[in-house]
């Protein structure tokens, strides 16, 4: 279970961006491949804990699962695998370990709002 340390890295990364741009983060968008070795459910669970006490508290983690895509040397094209137990072209059956997608563990975007200034007008 290394998802908590991964979740903490995500929060840290998003926090840095938020501070640098002076924004509030509503959601973090993540691309996750099955070959990253990270489990989506465990990550979602850990994310909430990792956010506690940070400026990301209450934000959401939106995970886009990326399928495994390999290059088939016989068909000479990219194919999406239906099972990670069978690294063969789904059409012609040629074995292949040329992985193009599926290892992603990537923050792609942040849903943000500009920081609200709560101080009343004129008080500055």
């Amino acid at each position, binding site marked *: 279970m290394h998802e908590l340390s991964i979740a903490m890295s995500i929060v840290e990364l998003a926090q840095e961006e938020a501070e640098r741009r002076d924004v509030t983060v509503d959601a973090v968008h993540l691309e996750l491949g099955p*070959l990253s070795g990270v489990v989506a459910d465990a990550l979602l669970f850990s994310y909430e804990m990792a956010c506690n006490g940070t400026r990301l508290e209450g934000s959401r983690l939106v995970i886009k699962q990326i399928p495994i895509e390999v290059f088939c040397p016989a068909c000479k094209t990219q194919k999406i695998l239906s099972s990670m137990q069978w*690294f063969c072209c789904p059409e012609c059956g040629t074995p292949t370990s040329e992985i193009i997608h599926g290892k992603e563990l990537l*923050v792609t*975007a942040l849903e943000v709002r*500009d920081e609200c200034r709560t101080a009343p007008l004129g008080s500055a």
Partner: protein
Amino acid sequence: MSAEPRLLEVRKNILKQNDVVARMLRERFRGQGTFVVSLVSSPGAGKTAFLERTLTLLHPHYRVAALVGDLATENDAVRLARSQAPVKQITTGTLCHLEAAMVDHALAGWDIGELDFLFIENVGNLVCPSSYDLGENLRLVLLSVTEGEDKPLKYPTIFNSADVAVITKMDLAEVVEFDEESMKANIQAVRPGMRHFTVSAKTGAGLPEYLQFLTARLAELTQKTSV
């Protein structure tokens, strides 16, 4: 002032920090002509016994050392030190895997240039170590004959992060009715083209082929470095 939500594109790799350290380590190892091998497996697959034999057999002919990760104890380091090779323990506490920075930190005080081979034994775990590059040249995934032939199908991710599979405890193969062909087929299903060795740390069977493979890889590396 009401703040409108908007989408900010970022595209940042989460493990970038680890990957940066791993890349730095890999360049350093290459520059020094040190061939680095890491070992991953489930707990009890025989990593330490296998590594102890490896170190003992290589030690008279090559300059070898090992780093060994463990959650809590130093037992493995004590066992490996019997090979006479320098060994350092990395105690990870509750962490279930090694990270590149831990390797970097553990190497402080060691002259890498003095080494032909450095072995890194990861924490026994077939899940978490797959996410972390340690800067190694070769990652071995070990699985013992007692674990069941379908292990590769259960942990395809770790097999895809490794380069070579080592089937251990072959001395027990007959007792547990180990089906080598089925294990081989399962390895090939999750990682076509993956090379494998069958060994027994107890009897020494299969170790010469594996050591020959390692020394050939070291020769390749030093050839490249000296060009």
